[in-house]
C-alpha cells in the first residue's frame, strides 16, 4: 500500500536501503537488551532504518552524488555492519541467536498473535494518516516545487511519507526478511499501477494484492514442508506483477500488441481506400469500375484488405473489376480532413 508512494517517487531502491539499514538496529537491540522479544528488536530496526533513510537524504542534498549512488552506499554500509554484528553475536556463548536469522529471510511461521495485532494496528494508523494527508501526499509526489510555493512545508510531508514507508518495511521484516522486503513493498504497487490511472484505486489495489499474496503465500508454504513462507509470498506477489504487465487493458503488453496490429490493419485499409479514391476521382462517375490489377502496384494492398473493404460496404467487386460505393467514396474523402484535424 505504502509501496505506491515509493513506486511513484521512482525510488524503488529506497525500500531496499531501508530494510538493509534496519539490520544493524536489530542486532544492536539484541546486544543491548539480550532479549529476543520482537517488539524490542523492531524498535531497533525502526531507529536504524530511519537513520539510514535520513542519511541518504543528507548525502543527496549535500553532495554531488546521485540518489541511487547514495542509496547503494547506505545499503551496503548498513548491511555489512549488520552482518558483522550478527556474526559477532553468533560467537557469543549465550547465543540463542537462531531467532535473529529469521530477519534475513523472514519466517512468517514464527509470528505470534501479538505480532499480528501489532501489524494490524500500525496498518490502521498508516491508513488514517494516509487518508488525512491524502491531498498533501498527492501534490508533493506530483510536483514538489509547486507544493512549496503554495505554502506547504514540504519537508514535513516528506518526513511523514518516509517515516511510514520505514515503519511498513520494519514490520514486514519478520515476515519476508531483509533481503526480500523491498520486493514485497514494490511488487503490489507496480502491479496495481498497471491496472489503474487513479492514485486512490492504485493504493487500494496494491493493498489488496499485498494482502492476497500474504495469505496465499502462507497457505502454499504451510501445505509443503520445506518451503519457507517469505520467499513464497514474494513469488506470489511477483506473479501478480507479471500477469499485470502482460494483461492490463491499457498498459499491458498483450493489449498493446493487439492494438498495434489492429492499428496497422486499419492504416493499410485506409491507405488502400485513399488510393482507390484517387483513382475513382479521375472519373466523373465515382462507381465506375476499375481493374483490380491497378491496385497491385500499390504497396500495402492485399487480397484480404480488399475483402475487408467489401465487407465494410466501401467497395463492390464484379469479376476482376472493382468500384467504390458511395459510402466508400465519402469515407475516403473524409479521411483526409479527419487526419488533418486530428493532427492539430
Amino acid at each position: 500500500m505504502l509501496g505506491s508512494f515509493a513506486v511513484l517517487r521512482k525510488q524503488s531502491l529506497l525500500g531496499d536501503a531501508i530494510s538493509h539499514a534496519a539490520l544493524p538496529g536489530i542486532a544492536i537491540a539484541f546486544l543491548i537488551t539480550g532479549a529476543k522479544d520482537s517488539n524490542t528488536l523492531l524498535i531497533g530496526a525502526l531507529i536504524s532504518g530511519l537513520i539510514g533513510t535520513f542519511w541518504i537524504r543528507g548525502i543527496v542534498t549535500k553532495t554531488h552524488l546521485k540518489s541511487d549512488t547514495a542509496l547503494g552506499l547506505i545499503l551496503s554500509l548498513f548491511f555489512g555492519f549488520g552482518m558483522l554484528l550478527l556474526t559477532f553475536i553468533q560467537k557469543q556463548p549465550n547465543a540463542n541467536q537462531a531467532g535473529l536469522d529469521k530477519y534475513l529471510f523472514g519466517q512468517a511461521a514464527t509470528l505470534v498473535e501479538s505480532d499480528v495485532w501489532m501489524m494490524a494496528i500500525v496498518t490502521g494508523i498508516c491508513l488514517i494518516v494516509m487518508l488525512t494527508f491524502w491531498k498533501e501526499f498527492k501534490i508533493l509526489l506530483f510536483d514538489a516545487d509547486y507544493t512549496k510555493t503554495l505554502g506547504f512545508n514540504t519537508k514535513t510531508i516528506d518526513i511523514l511519507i518516509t517515516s511510514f514507508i520505514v515503519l511498513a518495511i520494519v514490520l514486514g521484516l519478520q515476515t519476508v526478511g531483509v533481503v526480500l522486503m523491498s520486493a514485497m513493498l514494490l511488487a503490489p504497487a507496480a502491479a496495481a499501477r498497471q491496472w489503474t490511472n487513479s492514485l486512490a484505486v492504485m493504493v487500494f489495489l496494491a493493498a489488496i494484492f499485498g494482502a492476497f499474496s500474504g495469505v496465499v503465500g502462507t497457505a502454499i508454504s504451510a501445505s509443503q514442508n520445506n518451503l519457507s513462507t517469505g520467499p513464497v509470498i514474494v513469488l506470489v506477489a511477483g506473479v501478480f506483477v507479471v500477469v499485470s504487465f502482460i494483461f492490463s487493458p491499457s498498459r499491458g503488453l498483450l493489449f498493446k500488441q493487439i492494438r498495434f496490429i489492429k492499428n496497422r490493419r486499419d492504416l493499410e485499409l485506409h491507405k488502400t481506400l485513399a488510393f482507390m479514391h484517387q483513382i475513382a476521382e479521375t472519373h466523373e462517375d465515382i462507381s465506375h469500375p476499375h481493374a483490380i490489377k491497378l491496385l497491385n502496384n500499390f504497396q500495402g494492398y492485399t487480397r484480404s484488405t480488399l475483402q475487408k473493404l467489401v465487407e465494410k460496404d466501401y467497395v463492390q467487386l464484379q469479376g476482376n473489376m472493382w468500384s467504390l460505393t458511395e459510402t466508400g467514396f465519402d469515407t475516403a474523402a473524409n479521411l483526409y480532413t479527419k487526419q488533418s484535424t486530428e493532427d492539430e
Partner: protein
Amino acid sequence: MTKQMKKIAVKVDDLTVAYNYKPVLWDIDLEIPEGVLMAIVGPNGAGKSTLIKSILGILKPIAGSVTIYGKSYEKQRQLVAYVPQKGSVDWDFPTTALDVVKMGTYGSLGWIKRPGQKEKKAALEALEKVGMLPFKGRQISQLSGGQQQRIFLARALVQNASIYFMDEPFQGVDATTEIAIINILKELRKAGKTVIVVHHDLQTVPEYFDWVTFLNVKKIATGPVKDIFNDDNLTKTYGINYKVSIQE
C-alpha cells in the same frame, strides 16, 4: 520618468545563488513594476529558472532578499502563482486534468481540508478559460504537450494571484496554443496583474511583451521593450554578434 510613479510588484536585491560552489546568479538587482508583461531572456543555463525559483523560495539564495509589494515573500505568498517548466514533473502520474487544476486551490485550503464544490467550480472555470474543459477527465499522460501546458496554466489561474511567474510556457506547444496562451497572458495584464515569463523565442519578444530582462548569470539589462530590446543588449547577453530584425 513617469514610470517612477508605478508601484513595484517584485523587488530583488543583491541576489546571489549557487548550486554547489559555482554561482549561477550573481548579485542580481531587479525591480518589476506592477502590471507589466515581462520576458526573461538569456541563453540556456543563464539561470532564468533559477532566478524564478529563488524568488519563489524554492531555492535558498546565498545572499540577497526578495520583496513582493514591499513585504517578504513568505507574507505575500498568496499573491503569487507559479507555472513550472513542463518537464519538471512526471506526466505519467496517475491523475486527471481536473485534479491537477484543483491543486491550485490547495494553497488557500491549507492543511488537511479537502477541495469541495467551490474549488471544483473554480477549477472548471479555469479549464474553460484555457479551452481544456472537454478534457477535464482525461489522464494527464494522454494529453499532448500543448494541452499539458494549458493545464499548468489553468492551475495557476485558479490561484487568482496578482503576480504570475511562468517558466517557458511556450515550450513544445503548437502555434494555435501559443496564441491562446499569449492571449490569456495579455488578458491578465489588462486586469492589472503582473506576469513574468521565461521566454526563448527572441523574434516574438516585441510582439508579446512590454517589459524585458536580459539575464546571463548577471543581470544585463531590464526595462521597457521599446527602450532596451536592441542588438547591443542581445550581444551582451548571448555573447555573439546578435542581430534580430525588429519590426517597427
